[in-house]
C-alpha cells in the first residue's frame, strides 16, 4: 500500500481538532480561522504599498489601526502555524510533492483555472460572510451560534446543489 495515502481516521482528526478548538477557546476566547489572516495580509500589503489607498478604502480602513491589539496579528501567526503543521505532517507521511491534482478527465490547466476562480469566490464570500469554513462555520457551530449553522448550511448546501454541474472536474 502506498504510504502517502495512509491518512488518519477522519473521526480521530475531528476529535483531536475538537480538543484543539476547545483549548483555543479556553486560551483565546475565540475559535480558529484562516481567511481572517489572509485578509490581514491583504490589508497590510496594500497598506505598505499604497498607504493612502488603503486608508481611503472604506473596507480596509476598518482594519488599520495604530493600536496593536493582540488579536490583529494572531491569525497571521496561526496561519503560519497551519503551513508548518501541514508541512510536518506531509513530510512524515511522504506526501511532499509538487503536483496538480485533478480528475483524469480534465487538463491541469482547466483545474488551475477553476482553482483560481474558486479561490476568488471564496475570498469574496468569506469577507461577506465574515468568516470561512473554519472561522465561520466550524468555530461558529462549536459555540452554537446561529451564524455558524447558517453559514455551514449555505456553504455546503450550495456546493451540493452546484456539484452536479462540476462533476466532470472531480469524478
Amino acid at each position, binding site marked *: *500500500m502506498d504510504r502517502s*495515502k*495512509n*491518512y*488518519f*481516521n*477522519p*473521526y*480521530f482528526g475531528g*476529535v*483531536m481538532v*475538537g*480538543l484543539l478548538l476547545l483549548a483555543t477557546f479556553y486560551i483565546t476566547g475565540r475559535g480558529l480561522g484562516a481567511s481572517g489572516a489572509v485578509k490581514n495580509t491583504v490589508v497590510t500589503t496594500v497598506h505598505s504599498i499604497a498607504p493612502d489607498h488603503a486608508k481611503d478604502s472604506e473596507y480596509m480602513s476598518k482594519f488599520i489601526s495604530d493600536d496593536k491589539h493582540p488579536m490583529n496579528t494572531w491569525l497571521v501567526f496561526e496561519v503560519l502555524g497551519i503551513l508548518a503543521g501541514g508541512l510536518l505532517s506531509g513530510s512524515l507521511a511522504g506526501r511532499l510533492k509538487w503536483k496538480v491534482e485533478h480528475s483524469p478527465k480534465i487538463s491541469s490547466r482547466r483545474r488551475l483555472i477553476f482553482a483560481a476562480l474558486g479561490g476568488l469566490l471564496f475570498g469574496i464570500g468569506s469577507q461577506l460572510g465574515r468568516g470561512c469554513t473554519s472561522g465561520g462555520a466550524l468555530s461558529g457551530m462549536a459555540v452554537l451560534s446561529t451564524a455558524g449553522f447558517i453559514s455551514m448550511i449555505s456553504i455546503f448546501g450550495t456546493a451540493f446543489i452546484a456539484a452536479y454541474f462540476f462533476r466532470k472536474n472531480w469524478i
Partner: protein
Amino acid sequence: MKDTNLKTNRLSIAVLIFVSLLVIGFITMSKPEFEYKLTLEQSLEQILSLEDEMNPDELMEIIDSETKGYKVVDIRNPYEFVKGNIQGSKNIPYQNLFAKENIEFFDQMKKDSVTVVLCGYDQLEANGSWMLLQQLGYSNVKVLQGGYGYYSGETFDMFSESEIPQYFVEEPKYSFVEIMDKLTSGSIIEDEKVEYESIIPTRKKKETVIEGGC
C-alpha cells in the same frame, strides 16, 4: 480500505483524552462554601408566602408565656444591642453572620428544630440576613416584622389612626392618588398639614406609559 486509515486505536486515545478531561474537571470542581439550598424560584415563593415573617404581637406572646422552641437573634451591632434588646435574645451582628461559630449555632438550632427569630432595628435591617439564611436552607429562621424599634415601642406612633398595623411597612400610609390630585389642582396650600383620609384606593385611569426602556 484503500485510502483512509479506518483503524480506531488512535480514535480511542482521542476519546479517552476527552473523557478524562471531563472526569478531571468534575473531580476538581470547586464547590462554593455556602451552597444555596433554595432555587431562586423557591426563594421567591418563600418570601411571598409571608409564612416566615413573625408579627411582634405573636413574639410578645411567645416571650410572655415563655414558650419553648424559640430563640430571638438580634442582628444589630453590639452597641445598639447593649442599649436595649428583647429579653433572652442572642446578639449576632449580621456582619458576622457567616462566621464559623454562628453558622454552627444556626446548624444546631435547625437540628433542635428551634425557630430562630431574626430581629433588626426595623424589618429592613434583618431582611437581607433572613433571606440569605433561608436561601441557604435554614428554613427555621423567621424575621420579626417591625423589628426591635416597633417591639420596644420606639417607633410606635400612638397617634396614628390607621387601622393597619404599623409594622406592615409595605402598606401605603397615604392615599397617593388623592394627595397628588389635590396637589395638582392646587388645593393644598403650602405648609398646610394635610388631612390623610382613610385609604380607599380610588382607581384613576392613567395611561401606563413609561419613560426609558430602550
